[in-house]
């Protein structure tokens, strides 16, 4: 992949396969994606993203959040999706399918990030 095609900042290429599914703009989209994604896919994303979480946040913390370019914003959204997915993988585990039934009735209407 050439530099111009890169969808994520350098050093985070390993997460490119997850961009289409997980680089979502709103907290509710991220929460709902977690609920509809099959376990194997969810786990694959968690396994790929978790080792890069500290590095990603450290990198992104170097810049004011309002000044992220498109690649940085995408990396941020991926990490935010990881927050949701980690709850399925780390906390709910085998109960995630049951949990997803109830969780679809809850709508995140505002995240602090989207505050005016």
């Amino acid at each position, binding site marked *: 992949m050439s530099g111009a095609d890169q969808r994520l900042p350098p050093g985070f290429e390993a997460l490119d396969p997850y961009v289409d599914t997980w680089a979502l703009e709103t907290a509710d989209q991220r929460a709902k994606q977690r609920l509809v994604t099959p376990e194997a896919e969810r786990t694959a994303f968690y396994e790929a993203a978790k080792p890069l979480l500290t590095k990603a946040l450290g990198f*992104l913390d170097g810049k004011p959040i309002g000044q992220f370019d498109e690649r940085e914003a995408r990396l941020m959204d991926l990490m935010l999706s990881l927050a*949701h997915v*980690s709850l399925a993988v780390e906390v709910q585990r085998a109960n995630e399918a049951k949990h997803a039934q109830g969780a679809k*009735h*809850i709508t995140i209407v505002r*995240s602090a990030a989207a505050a005016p």
Partner: protein
Amino acid sequence: MNVQVPQFLRSDATDMAGLGTSPIPAEPYYRPEFFELEREAIFRRTWLQIGHVSELPRPGTFIVRPVEVANASVLLTRGRDGAIRAFHNVCTHRGTQLVSEAEGARTSFTCPYHAWTFGNDGELRAAPDAERFYVDTADCALKKIAVDVCAGLIFINLAPSPKESLREFLGEMAEQLEALPVAKATTFSEYVYDIDANWKLTYDNFQENYHLRVVHPDTSGAGIGPDNPFGYPLSFGFFGPHRSQTIWLNPAATVEPIQGMAYGKLAEFAVGEGLGGLPANPAYLALFPNFFMLGSIGTPFSHTVMPISATRSRGVIRFYWVGDDDSASKRFAREYSTAAGVDIHSEDRAIIEAGQQGLNSGALKHIHFQEQEVLLRHFFQTVMDHVDAYRATLSDPS
């Protein structure tokens, strides 16, 4: 690692606050007739939490909020003088709903029917062909609703003249609220749900920990532990119609990797946000009738249960934050905390609906509250006191 865990001692709540131990009648949790009484006895005359000052950040901003139980839509504005005002969102010409947006920035509101225009102070500024009316424009201001603020929380009272001020109503709770993150908050995350359940049944779920290990087998986290398997609170408090509990937390709880990272960051940020002094065992403050708040660093949330009918309600959960998400780490940690809240509350929502279905059958004449469900008993008694007092005014001819 071996962690010394202080032995949990159950707070003896037997017959606490003189509430007795009787079974509780089931009908108030599903009968439409009882809901009609609550509508008048409670919701049309009690201070209700409706918003937060951060929703009206500048003069000229406004929000519109439904209060279904009173068939009302409330327009809240911040005037040029900085004051927050509340009005019925009802044009005084022929009653049309004046503002259709949920929020915005505008200092005047024009009715979509015949274009009467009101200022954000409620005054009628202009009415087309006004001279043909038989009423003075000065007498056509929007209908005011009593409004006041405590700890950043905006409360309204739909009574034409409330029998007590917000401060009088809150009593000692005011000071406790002022110590929580919500009082300093400048922003919040929010999630909502609709539920086929009575508002009290819904609210009750969040007043007891007896259900934690059953309903939240994976998400109870530090809420339960070997010497406190039910996660009972350290103490209870009763303040007029309001109540509180001090939440017990298991200091030796297992923490998952990303979970630990997120809450660790929130604890760090809290110090920078001036919240470092919050107690390790968070206060849970329940304001009559339908609001409660948890004052913890990682999960500083409020929960309001808005009644819609005898068997339908709407929940609003807000995580209050001090300062914007000014870094990726802060945004991540706040999103984690909010998402973890959704996990827990979605489990609650499902089991509450199951409870409502059972009650709707009318099979039970009574339900039962155990010693550690004393907050539910206090809440029920407070509802009954209000309903009885209202009934007395109906039968009293004077």
